[in-house]
């Protein structure tokens, strides 16, 4: 199937000085669910913001490469246009309008849509998140973290998106809530045919619901593969489960470094001796 999203050789620069992405390649299949994994500072959020073009507000810009959504280039398009086209980013930290009520927050999600579809979409959101229906008149700032994440995801559904970019939906949530939220994300993918790009540090949870994953390190995709493969992969495991056989914490870079050294060693042996 042709991908709904394709990024080729994408480079991103903040303040025309700080390079964050160095030639990123990534794709999300139509109606697929894909994880973007990697440690803090690997460039996951930047990748999502490059797609949704929310970089400009942080003085960032895509300086090279191409991003195709449904086959057409989208670099530099106005964020509002991208939402209308069907890309919706659920930002890290939920970013609700804390002073607005739950329902007003949801209605902002439908800002790019005709008001005729509003009530049907609200219905759909309340069906997935019944708890929000009870709290519709409450100020969003006073909800619990889990409920806020539900509003954030619900708000994205209001825009009738084709591709949702989820940035760390597990952040700051209790494991049981993470499970609930991830279950809903999986359902949305299956039942509504929503394409999902899920940026997560919680690799174990993310790999349990996605089909495919990209592991980022230092602004590049360091590794990619089907979810089961990544789940089994020793270096991913070492990195994410935090400990190697020796029982010490290692950075992904260190693990890769070791791998590269070993490969070079083998090459040298094959060539020289």
């Amino acid at each position: 199937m042709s991908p709904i999203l394709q990024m080729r050789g994408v480079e991103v620069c903040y303040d025309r000085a700080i390079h964050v992405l160095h030639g990123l390649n990534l794709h999300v299949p139509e109606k697929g669910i894909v994880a973007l994994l990697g440690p803090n500072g690997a460039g996951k959020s930047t990748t999502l913001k490059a797609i949704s073009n929310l970089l400009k507000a942080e003085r960032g810009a895509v300086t090279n490469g191409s991003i195709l959504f449904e086959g057409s280039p989208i670099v530099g398009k106005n964020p509002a246009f991208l939402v209308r086209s069907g890309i919706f980013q659920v930002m890290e930290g939920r970013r609700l309008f804390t002073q607005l009520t739950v329902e007003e927050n949801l209605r902002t999600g439908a800002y790019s849509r005709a008001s005729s579809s509003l009530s049907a979409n609200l219905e759909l959101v309340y069906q997935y998140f019944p708890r929000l229906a009870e709290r519709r008149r409450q100020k969003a700032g006073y909800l619990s973290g889990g409920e806020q994440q539900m509003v954030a995801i619900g708000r994205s559904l209001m825009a009738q998106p084709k591709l949702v970019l989820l940035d760390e939906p597990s952040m700051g949530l209790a494991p049981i809530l993470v499970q609930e939220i991830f279950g809903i994300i999986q359902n949305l993918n299956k039942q509504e045919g929503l394409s999902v790009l899920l940026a997560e540090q919680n690799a174990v949870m993310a790999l349990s619901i996605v089909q495919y994953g990209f592991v980022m390190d230092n602004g590049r995709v360091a590794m990619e593969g089907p979810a089961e493969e990544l789940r089994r992969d020793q270096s991913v495991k070492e990195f994410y489960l935090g400990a190697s056989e020796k029982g010490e914490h290692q950075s992904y870079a260190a693990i890769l470094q070791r791998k590269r050294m070993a490969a070079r060693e083998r090459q040298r042996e094959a060539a020289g001796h």
Partner: protein
Amino acid sequence: MNDLAFAVELTITGVLIGLLYSMIALGFVLIFKASSVFNFAQGAMTLFSALTLVGLIPLVGFWLALVGAVLIMCVVALVAERVAFRPLIGSSPLVIFMATIGLAYILEGFAQMVWGTQPHGLKLGLPVDPLKLGSIFISKSDLISAGVAGVLVALLIVFFQYTKIGLGLRAIANDQIAAQSVGIDLRKVWAIAWILAGFVALVAGMLWGSRIGVHFAMSLIALKALPVLIIGGIESIPGAIVGGIIVGVAEALGEGFIGPYVGGGVQDVMAYLVALIFLLIRPYGIFGQAAIERV
């Protein structure tokens, strides 16, 4: 009894003038809500719109002049947003604030170029004789001005609370980047906020112009908006109203009761005195939003 009647009369006058202060403050609130920018040019916009109105009246009559002034303010607002503020998206608030200072000078200079530097009278044909209630006198023209201000405020509140663009404006006021992420077009909503601010400036300019004449000191009245904003809270429309009334009443009562003992001039300090007290006890204003933070 006399003192009481005097106090009531001063209070009513204070409320009516206070609503006119609110009108000026409202322009600041609109821009601040939409873009978190303190629009230094609001006073200049008030002056510019009043001068435009006064300049057009002899040419085409009052109503056409009013329509013309509304259109011109729309154009000014759109050009300012497009040329000065859109390119600065993402810049630090200080940079944008400086841009509003630049805009203020350009507007004042442009107004002088086109309409000259002479002060103008603006006659709206409001009645000059006071309304007499027992021993209390109330200015009819103040009453009408306050009524106009009240209607405009009510319309703005309805607009913010019940329309889609109003929802967008409130969302942007709350979190600009999140507003972009949900597909609210900052450029469109900003343009609308600037047009509204231009319209409010026009109404304020008209009402103030009919009171004190249209001249360059008018852009200084905008400074009166500062204490109003401090008292009411800079992101609140009701705050602008209540703040304006408090300032108006404090001025009238201060001048009426304290003024005679110190030789007058109390009026000019009262607003800042009250603002100072508010800064100490409630720095985000009566209706200002203390940020909701989860702990």
